[in-house]
């Protein structure tokens, strides 16, 4: 299974998808704020905001195509693009949605790769292979699989999941908020966070906006919480940051505003365990409140900027501030007092990772 590199392929596709969703999501949000609506009849005329709403909506409707094409490209390289688009559109058509797009992308990717490698043609037909044979055969076969095998079940499963998620009661919401908040925050944008991201992103594409908002919040509680903890130092007479760390906060906080946690890395790596605990608590509190108050971002990135796309931006702000406060309090209590002028040789500290599997390939 490891050789299949499933995760790498889906991450590659997501890396192409993110700017598309963010751009389109903001277009839709700005259009909607300006009172725009979908252009249904070109003859009737349209205004500026109508164009934004329409473009945003059109692109967001194509996300299963984007993810399928991205995955197929990652697996099969350039020949994967054409059949990837076909199966993505088929997934949209049969209403198998984003999940259908993901599965379809894998199917068509491996199928295309197999055909590209195994199909031998006479010399005169070599030009036909990439131009006609691969796109046609691969598209037809994977399209048939989508329409006759996986499409319907996936569509039913998607509807079921949507119904389930929209019928959550308060305690369920808090529970899911805590789980997503903790998992998305504790490894600071690492592998656990990315798996959660793939999952909540699929929900977002299906129109369930709350879980991804929790993930966004979880990426922000650390920089916000660390910055808040800075201001606890004076009133409570306990110094927890060195001069270097204070300087780090100056860039880490603005990065946090736009949902980039990594600015905090120097501080985190100096004191990994305490920071993880503080972040996890903040993620849990913020996540629960965010779900409870219905914070719903229709874009998957952007941090505070994404608030323009929410119907409950104040719920998000409240959850973010309280979650960060929780992080700040826990961090402030856990952290040992330090001399402000102490210089930490953070370079010498490294995680204990077994590198024996690292090989020349």
């Amino acid at each position, binding site marked *: 299974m490891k050789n299949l590199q499933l995760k790498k392929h889906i991450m590659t596709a997501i890396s192409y998808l993110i700017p598309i969703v963010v751009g389109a999501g903001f277009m839709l949000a700005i259009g909607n704020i300006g009172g725009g609506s979908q252009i249904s009849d070109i003859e009737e005329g349209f205004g500026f905001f109508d164009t934004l709403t329409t473009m945003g909506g059109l692109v967001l409707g194509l996300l299963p195509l984007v993810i399928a094409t991205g995955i197929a490209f990652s697996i099969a390289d350039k020949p994967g693009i054409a059949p990837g688009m076909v199966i993505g559109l088929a997934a949209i058509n049969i209403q198998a949605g984003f999940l259908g797009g993901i599965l379809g992308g894998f199917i068509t990717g491996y199928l295309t790769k197999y055909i590209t490698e195994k199909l031998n043609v006479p010399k005169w037909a070599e030009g036909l292979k990439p131009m006609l044979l691969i796109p046609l055969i691969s598209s037809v076969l994977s399209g048939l699989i989508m329409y006759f095998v996986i499409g319907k079940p996936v569509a039913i499963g998607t509807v079921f999941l949507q119904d389930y998620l929209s019928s959550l009661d308060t305690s369920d919401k808090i529970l899911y908020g805590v789980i997503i908040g903790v998992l998305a925050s504790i490894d600071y944008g690492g592998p656990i966070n990315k798996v959660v991201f793939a999952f909540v992103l699929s929900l977002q594409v299906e129109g369930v906006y709350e879980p991804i908002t929790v993930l966004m919040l979880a990426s922000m509680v650390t920089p916000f919480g660390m910055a808040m903890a800075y201001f606890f130092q004076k009133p409570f007479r306990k110094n927890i940051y060195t001069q270097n760390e204070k300087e780090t906060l100056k860039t880490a906080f603005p990065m946090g505003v736009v949902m980039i946690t990594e600015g905090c890395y120097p501080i985190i790596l100096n004191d990994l365990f305490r920071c993880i605990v503080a972040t996890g608590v903040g993620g849990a509190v913020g996540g629960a409140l965010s779900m409870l108050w219905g914070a719903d971002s229709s874009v998957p990135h952007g941090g505070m900027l994404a608030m323009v796309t929410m119907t409950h931006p104040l719920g998000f702000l409240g959850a973010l501030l309280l979650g960060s406060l929780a992080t700040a309090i826990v961090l402030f209590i856990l952290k040992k007092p330090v001399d402000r002028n102490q210089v930490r040789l953070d370079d010498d500290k490294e995680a204990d990772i077994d590198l024996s599997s690292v090989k*020349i390939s």
Partner: protein
Amino acid sequence: MKIVGIAACTAGIAHTYIAKEKLIKAAQQAGHEICMETQGTIGRQDELSAEKINEADVVIIAADVKVSGKERFEGKKIIEIPTEIVIRAPKKLIKRVENLIDEANQVQS
């Protein structure tokens, strides 16, 4: 040792560049010469020159996603790892790379 490498992560705005910095720092501290290309969401930056690649003893690809232009490294010793490893233990990784290259060279001679 002469090292060339590529860094690329999923969101393509942060881990990519942290991995690049960490790897450069760790390699230089260990006395190696290193050039790193980044493939973030903005596209390719600090593209590796053919000359650099030609001279390199090893190629380190620190990526969570598919990188482009791998064909440039044909016939080279390539080491592929997720960005996570570079960010969390860059010096250990450089040590490991040194050992691997030594082993490979011994086998050859």
